[in-house]
């Protein structure tokens, strides 16, 4: 095998790839664009929409035997709700909830002195009911507002009662609870990034590779350039290795760009959201962690490159290759999500599972709990899987029935 031929094929393929708008989109624009768009665009859009819903005034039915002036004022003035007290009938109210005329129903039963709180023997008070529709955002918001209003109301009743009895409020609330987050800024950023970064980076590597890998194989057959290449003195092994190097490099570029994109987006997110949040989300990735990210990304990109080349070369056309490759893409996405699964930890067993091992090792790197032994096992097993995939791709490239299938 002549390495010079491998690099000649690699140089030509890379030139071809970077002149293709579609590859540039999947290799550069997607990682640089989609992450800020998802975090900023969708996040801020969802936030704004939610704020709009929060600020809106919604109708809520109050069914009660007694006059609840304080509560009505609390719900209307403090919580911005329109309290309807004229319906009275539960069945009619429920119908109105169903047809979305109102967003919630608050039912306060007739107060029985035995359980109303005036009887010191009774342990519990009476039950107040809220009916709402959890499948609707508006209804859920109203339920929360009504609940908060009721908590205030209950608190007011307790304070009044204690005042009458000449007792301090600390009788019913002897202490308050204050939690203190002792995680450092880096740990906080790591925890968020530890979930997001492995998935995004693996996904971007895969999407970056998919288009050029198909273009260099099935695309070549479709454009009738495969035979031109096959009659050159380069061996088929040299040809497939040159193509494989190109696809791998595209995958590494895509994933590194997504790391950069995440870093920049998180830094900007901190600045945008102000000091309180920025303190917690400062993105700091130390050189060792970055080095590990790169070391783990290379074998995973090579694995994807070899896998997609081996599959796509069987197709006659770009479209056919897409239908072969996309189920594989879906199959790879799930193990990449391992970093988002609560309770899934990297151990020696997990370090042998392809893609899952890289996802978990990247998460550990981000969180700052790097186990170098596991990183080494993950790297070596990933290299091993990549080597198997390359071997298969080279073997498939030797089959004339596959290469000349047009």
């Amino acid at each position: 095998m002549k390495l010079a031929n491998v690099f000649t094929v690699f140089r030509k393929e890379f030139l071809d790839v970077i002149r293709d708008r579609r590859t540039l989109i999947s290799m550069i624009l997607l990682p640089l664009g989609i992450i800020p768009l998802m975090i900023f665009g969708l996040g801020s859009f969802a936030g704004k929409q939610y704020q709009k819903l929060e600020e809106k005034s919604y109708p809520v039915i109050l069914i009660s035997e007694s006059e609840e002036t304080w509560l009505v004022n609390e719900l209307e003035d403090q919580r911005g709700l329109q309290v309807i007290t004229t319906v009275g009938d539960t069945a009619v109210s429920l119908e109105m909830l169903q047809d979305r005329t109102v967003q919630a129903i608050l039912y306060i039963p007739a107060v029985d002195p035995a359980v109303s709180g005036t009887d010191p023997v009774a342990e519990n008070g009476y039950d107040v009911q809220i009916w709402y529709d959890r499948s609707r955002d508006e209804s859920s918001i109203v339920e929360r507002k009504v609940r908060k209003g009721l908590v205030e109301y209950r608190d007011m009743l307790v304070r009044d009662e204690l005042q009458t009895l000449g007792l301090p409020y600390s009788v019913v609330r002897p202490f308050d609870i204050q939690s203190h987050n002792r995680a450092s800024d880096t740990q906080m950023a790591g925890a968020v990034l530890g979930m997001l970064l492995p998935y995004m980076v693996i996904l971007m590597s895969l999407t970056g590779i998919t288009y050029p890998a198909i273009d260099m194989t099935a695309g070549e057959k479709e454009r009738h350039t495969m035979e031109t290449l096959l009659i050159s003195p380069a061996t088929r092994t040299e040809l497939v290795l040159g193509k494989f190097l190109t696809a791998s490099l595209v995958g590494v570029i895509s994933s590194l760009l997504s790391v950069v994109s995440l870093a920049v987006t998180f830094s900007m997110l901190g600045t945008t959201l102000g000091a309180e949040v920025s303190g917690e989300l400062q993105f700091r990735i130390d050189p060792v962690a970055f080095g590990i990210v790169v070391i783990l990304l290379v074998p995973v990109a090579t694995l994807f490159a070899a896998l997609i080349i081996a599959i796509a070369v069987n197709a006659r056309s770009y479209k056919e290759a897409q239908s072969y490759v996309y189920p594989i893409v879906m199959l790879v996405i799930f193990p990449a999500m391992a970093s988002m699964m609560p309770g899934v930890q990297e151990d020696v067993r997990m370090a042998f599972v392809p893609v899952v091992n890289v996802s978990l090792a990247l998460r550990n790197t981000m969180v700052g709990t790097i186990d170098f032994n596991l990183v080494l096992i993950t790297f070596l097993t990933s290299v091993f899987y990549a080597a198997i995939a390359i071997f298969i791709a080279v073997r498939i490239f030797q089959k004339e029935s596959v290469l000349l299938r047009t």
Partner: protein
Amino acid sequence: MIQVKNLSKNFTDKKRGIIKAVDGISFDCHPGEVYGLLGPNGAGKTTTLRLLSTVLKPDSGTASICDYDVVERPNKVRAVIGFLSGDTGLYRRLTGREIMRYFASLYGLSKDDFNLRIKDIESILELSDFLDTKTDKLSTGQKQRISIARTILHDPPVLILDEPTAGLDIIASRAIIEFISRARTSGKTILFSTHMMQEAERLCDRIGIIHNGQLQVQGSLENLRNQYNTQNLEEVFLKAVDLV
């Protein structure tokens, strides 16, 4: 030179079973000679040429080009042939010069050799106006000239041309025919497949008529005319394939 002995190639088709695409073909072709493989579509012309270009491997028989066996020394064979067919397309996002540089590198040409060679080819094939234009912007004729340039880039002693004028207009076809004539004059061994009688009559020193994967008859144009007692090559062809 090209030597082919009892060359066979079968394909397996799910519906039709085993298909004998090339069935025991033997012929040879010498320097300064144009040998034409004449046959209808599906006769086995392209498969024969693909076997010789080492893209396909034969099931039985032998073939050698410049004394290199196509099975044992495929890389050497590919280095001494220039192969052109309807299936040898161009990279549309690269310019003619970039494609040429790519193949020059695979053929092991040095930078200086490449620069000298491209100058020669540029003037022979009149490529100057479009050599630095991406090939997807070129006309069919211009693309074909770039393909020819790619075929002769490494100055191969043997040219294998599979229906090189298919799909071309009269002007582009004429350029190809002139190119083949010039190549013969310069002593190249040329194997050429076509189903166009006029081209075969004009260019070929010897003709082999192929049908159902078998070489029905071969010889010089004169011999074939005498053998079938007609001056018309089309009639020779039809008689050879038992259609009249």
